[in-house]
């Protein structure tokens, strides 16, 4: 099964660029990605620019409306994702728990629909 791991965190909890904590987080992400690739579970994965760069788009009565900012005003913002191919939810949970941001944010697991 494929699961999308959506990685959320509150900006104030994120390690600051240039600090040793930031370095440790990046090393953790590199190791995690390498592990997924080595065992064949990696489908794709990216980090996103901050939510302050988000633009939300809607079409109302044929008219395109754009809004500055993310779709929902929440404390934790979407910061990145992994798409993983694993046998079951337990495996997906075990991997999600190894994503560095899970230590101070939230990882939401969503199974991919098979049509």
């Amino acid at each position, binding site marked *: *099964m494929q699961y999308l791991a959506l990685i959320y965190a509150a900006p104030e909890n994120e390690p600051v660029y240039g600090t040793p904590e930031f370095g440790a987080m990046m090393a953790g992400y590199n190791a995690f990605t390498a592990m997924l690739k080595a065992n064949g579970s990696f489908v794709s994965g990216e980090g996103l620019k901050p939510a302050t760069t988000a633009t939300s788009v809607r079409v109302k009565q044929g008219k395109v409306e754009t809004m500055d900012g993310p779709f929902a005003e929440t404390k934790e913002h979407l910061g990145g994702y992994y798409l993983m191919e694993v046998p*079951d*939810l*337990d495996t997906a949970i075990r991997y999600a728990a190894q994503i560095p941001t899970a230590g101070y944010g939230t990882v939401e697991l969503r199974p991919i629909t098979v049509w």
Partner: protein
Amino acid sequence: MSDAAPDPALIAILDQTLRADRGRILAALIARVGDFQLAEDALQDAGTSALVHWGRSGPPARPEAWLIRVAFRKAIDRLRASARDARQFRALVVLSIDEAVEEPELIQDDRMRLIFTCCHPALEPKSRVALTLRTIAGLSTAEIARAFLDSEPTMAQRLTRAKTKLREAGIAFDVPGPEDWPGRLQSVLAVVYLIFNAGYTAGPDEARDLCAEAVFLARLLTQLAPDDPEIAGCLALLLITHARHAARAVGGVTVALSDQDRALWDRNAIEQGLLLLQSAMARRRPGPYQIKGAIAACQVQDGGPDWPQIALLYDSLYRLEPTPVVQLNRAVALAETGLLPHALDLLGQLGAQLQDYQPFHAARAEYLARAGQIRQSHDAYDRALDLTTSVADATFLRQRRAALTLS
């Protein structure tokens, strides 16, 4: 269908089989068809056929094996009728192969997989409890709804949602591997304990005694995994606590532990619990349920509860489970050892977290009274009474509060 109404004797055999073996039958079916709902629907179909076939040729020697065999076929029929997509067709192929090798005697007991699946932490805690009672213990949706003060449609919806999540979220029908075992087992034992507590709070007069269902589940777990000390600790806890149930209320009024008539306790169940606990602790793999079992054992000690030991055990439990409820029980034990000011201090710190928890206000009322703070105690009794659902508890609290006003 036949013209005559089904023979009541056959209905009784079918009901008894489903009551006793529903979990085993469903586990075997789900292991093959991989889907809770399909397994339940197929079992229902098989039950309907049973009354017709058994009426014609007499009941089979092993009704449970008959039901499993026929339900397999019914599941295949259902899949065949609705197999439109590739995934369902694959399931059908697997099933047909399985049917060829199926022999009732060789069907393994898959109930452990069923229990771990029903208690999966990805489900809401209440859904875990409901699903376990429905599939393993064989309670009806109506009975579960009544136990949890929900309407039947609400409970049915909850069960359907849980089964859909099991299927759609890719929750494996399996026992966890060694690395996930301790955590997942705690989730299973928490469900058993919740079921027991629901029965304990409701009191022994309910139609389906949930305490007895919880003891049944814990016993089943010890049979399926006899070497796990936490499972044994959980069964010991339930047996020893349940052993006191005849003494818990006299004349419709709750009796405090220290005042209970020990002649009404079930000595046999206590002995069983103590033996289980002893062999569990000899494995030297301690855990929260062994500690809770040990606390229950200290409560039934000859000569009265061993409060100092109970307080120390709650210290250990708090290190593993730092919850306000454990802290509350620790405070009660400390108060009973005579450390009243310290206990009241601890209770004071718990007020915000436990403001809607009846036992907190009942305990606080008792110890405020002992400390001579009568007015505050009175208020705490009022708050406890507001939160009390059991008539026996309410009568007990009202009597305590009345005694307070007189003194």
